[in-house]
């Protein structure tokens, strides 16, 4: 029984999901009530996690579940961004008629799956969490079922994701076969000697994970799914699964496969460089903002992985800092997207931003800040994210990775500048609606101020993250 007090957050969210489901089925017209209740339960969940976060690592259920500083931090930013995702999207799903009771419940169950992934210390538990989040995501992607693009994106995501889960499972079974255990720590102990079986296992697992994090060359699903899904779901896709997958990446590389870093380091460096370059180059020709942000997130994942490739605590911490700042930038960007509404229709093409600055100075200014931050121009938060990553990369004398990465930022700067050009330099179009719901405004204000004022106290995230040590 002692174990249960540590997984109180997980238990709480599971119970809430079931209660909300029952409630929604038996009570008619309770959609917005459940939406709000889900958001409140996320806040309580966040409070529970923070309350239970201790510095010590706690192993639960025969060492198959681990709560440590890494999992705590990741869960906090996961649930925190979950709250903001729900806040920003509430108006959107009403306008495009998606406010069904399943929507918040699917989001909650997906978050539950991610929490299990983050804390897992065992191949089976990990896979269970992964599938829970994936199943919820398949449905969410095709949630706008009358829309052709949405159903297409759901199907596409399902087929490709199932394929990658298959590869992942194959990798898991190979790893289990050669190391005689599913427990991460046990695998580490048993895999001191080199053998091809485990190497293949690593490759397959990394492929599966790279798919989930949408890193090149396993990124093909991302642009279509980002574009086709409802925008609120796209925002969810852009942030939460990335946090969970990055945390699993860290866990896999530095717990079971820590001894074999000479095997996986090259793979990560390759994936990282390919993502940075491809994401930057492919985004140049895009016309749809959601599609563009998909390529941009591919390139950002490249930078986050660059930190992991260093095999150092500093590198891991820089990756976590990167993803934390990345999620704030994405929140801000999507909040701006949600504000491009006119007559109950949302606009999502780059051309729709034309001349925005003349009638919407504050919205344009926020976009300006976010885009320069995404491009990594100082003194905005995005610069510090990249700075920490390259600090770690250069510490390990990986100059090639650093120089390629920084040159890719110059290419990437081009398409961010293009959006700014359209907002500020081009002739204006019709006005958008100016009244927005409070949650959206608050999210945009908080995230923009965070990005803008991060340079005043740039150690804020680093200090928390510096407690996470894996090596």
């Amino acid at each position, binding site marked *: 029984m002692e174990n249960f007090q540590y997984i109180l957050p997980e238990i709480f969210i599971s119970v809430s999901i079931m209660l909300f489901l029952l409630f929604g089925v038996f009570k008619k017209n309770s959609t917005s009530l459940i939406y709000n209740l889900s958001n409140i339960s996320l806040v309580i969940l966040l409070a529970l996690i923070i309350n239970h976060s201790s510095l010590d690592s706690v192993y639960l259920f025969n060492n198959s579940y681990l709560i440590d500083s890494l999992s705590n931090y990741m869960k906090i930013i996961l649930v925190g961004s979950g709250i903001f995702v729900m806040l920003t999207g509430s108006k959107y799903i009403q306008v495009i008629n998606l406010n069904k009771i399943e929507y918040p419940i699917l989001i909650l169950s997906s978050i539950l799956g991610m929490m299990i992934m983050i804390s897992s210390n065992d191949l089976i538990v990990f896979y269970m969490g992964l599938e829970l989040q994936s199943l919820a995501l398949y449905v969410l992607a095709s949630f706008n079922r009358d829309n052709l693009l949405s159903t297409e994106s759901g199907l596409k995501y399902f087929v490709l994701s199932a394929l990658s889960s298959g590869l992942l499972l194959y990798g898991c079974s190979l790893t289990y076969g050669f190391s005689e255990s599913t427990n991460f720590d046990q695998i580490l102990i048993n895999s001191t000697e080199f053998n091809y079986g485990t190497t293949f296992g690593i490759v397959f697992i990394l492929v599966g994970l790279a798919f989930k994090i949408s890193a090149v060359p396993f990124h093909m699903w991302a642009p279509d799914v980002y574009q086709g899904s409802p925008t609120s779901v796209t925002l969810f896709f852009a942030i939460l699964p990335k946090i969970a997958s990055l945390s699993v990446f860290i866990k896999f590389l530095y717990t079971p496969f820590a001894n074999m870093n000479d095997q996986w380091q090259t793979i990560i460096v390759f994936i990282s460089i390919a993502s940075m370059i491809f994401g930057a180059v492919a985004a140049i020709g895009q016309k749809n903002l959601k599609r563009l942000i998909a390529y941009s997130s591919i390139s950002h994942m490249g930078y986050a992985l660059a930190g992991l490739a260093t095999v150092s605590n500093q590198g891991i911490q820089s990756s976590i800092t990167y993803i934390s700042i990345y999620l704030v930038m994405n929140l801000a960007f999507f909040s701006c997207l949600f504000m491009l509404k006119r007559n109950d229709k949302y606009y999502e093409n780059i051309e729709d931003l034309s001349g925005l600055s003349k009638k919407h*100075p504050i919205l344009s200014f926020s976009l300006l800040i976010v885009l*320069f931050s995404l491009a990594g*121009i*100082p*003194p905005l938060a995005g*610069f510090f994210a990249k*700075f920490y990553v*390259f*600090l770690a990369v*250069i*510490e390990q004398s990986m*100059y090639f990775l*650093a*120089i390629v990465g*920084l*040159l890719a*930022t*110059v290419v990437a*700067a*081009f398409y961010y*500048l293009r959006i*700014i*050009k359209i907002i*500020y*330099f081009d002739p204006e179009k019709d006005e958008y609606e100016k009244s927005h719901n409070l949650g959206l405004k608050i999210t945009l204000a908080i995230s923009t101020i965070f990005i803008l004022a991060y*340079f005043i106290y*740039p*150690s804020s995230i*680093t*200090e928390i993250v510096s407690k996470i040590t894996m090596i």
Partner: protein
Amino acid sequence: MNFPILSSLILLPTIGALFILFTKSTSEKYQSSKYVALFISLANFLLSLYLWYVFDKNSVDFQFVENREWLSGFINYKVGIDGISILFVILTTFITPICIISVNATIKNRLKDFLIAILIMETFMIGVFCSLDLVVFYLFFEAGLIPMFLIIGIWGGERRVYSAFKFFLYTLLGSVLMLVAIISIYWITGTTDVEKLYELGIKAEYQNLLWLAFFSSFAVKTPMWPVHTWLPDAHVEAPTVGSVLLAAILLKMAGYGFIRFSLGLFPIASENFTMLVYALSLIAIIYTSLVALMQEDMKKLIAYSSVAHMGFVTLGIFTMTQQGIEGSIFQMISHGLVSAALFLSVGVVYERHHTRLINKYGGLVSIMPRYAIVFMVFTLGALGLPGTTGFIGEFLILMGAFEKNILVAMIASLGVILGAAYMLWLFKRVVFGEMNNQELKSMKDLKTFEIITLSALVIPILFFGFYPEPLMNSIEASVENTLNMYNFDLINNLASKD
């Protein structure tokens, strides 16, 4: 802890910008915003003059140093000034109010945003000259791109988008390698504090690559041949005030960077690459002067002349002589004043006649006598006539060059002749000659605010041309110190090789 005077100098314009941002102006023309901006920038100018007054000119140490913990544990926010940087700070605070006064003439729409951009820009520019930490320096150096990109892009001419992109991407590309170098320095020496780095020194084996990485950034920003092509575009398309800021201050960041970082941190590499810098500088001086001769657009001509003048600056810095470096600094200050004045002068006629093509003008002396006089002073300043600041800078640079390499000095002297040629020819074609174009007759002479701004520039150009002592006094000790450290490092390196 004393009053943080440098931080207030850096932050004051930003506070002004925030004030303008959050106050609503009732009138259409945003007059009140303009007065706020002017007041803030003048206050900053007075503050910097006070700084110069209390500044100890005989000391070689950095003064008014502020050192605060910033990136926990490893990088501090450190600012301080010595005799070299204080001149650039004053140049910045002097040019900004002039820009703000001239804003009315050129900026028709979104004046408020423009004022905010200029004030933010001032913050970053002062920050560059004050920072004593490489990361802080990089932060200010790069951050300046954002307001400048917007200034060119929003208020620029026809091809503004192309020019703004070119400016931004060129400079960013140059700078990212500097970031790699800065981080490498941190891991090699354990600090990015400039003062500590001066003491510690950087091992000779790393210096060449690090020097090249810094060079890539500074060469683009200077700009040196062959990466100067963004400058004519940016200048031509930027609004007058943008060109003034660009020419007067942004270009000086690189020259300052060469003295402070390339010479100070990598003396051995600087010695190795001297010939490269000489060659590029000479090409810049001769080639861009010839190109300037051929220009039909006034702004483009002045832009190319800027490249040539900056060629003198880089040449002077890498002579590694007291005269050469002092001359370079003097030349930078002089060019800051003269090029700002020239761009403003072009702005004056562009405002009235809406063209920058030289052949559309002629005979202005008969209808705009006052304009003809100030324009003549600036022309003579640009070509380096004795009695203007331009002369002293070029003279000292050539003196330094003669000491090191006679051939280089002789070729560079040709540049002086070419400079006289294109500037005098420009003056002849615009101000003298016959007035063929009847439309020109309606042009009015200088307005009051133009007289204020232009005479504010005439005075220092002539004053320091005849009496350079105050400026020289200020830089002498610091330059001597830089050179001493430089030679000390070189001798040490030779000794360790034997």
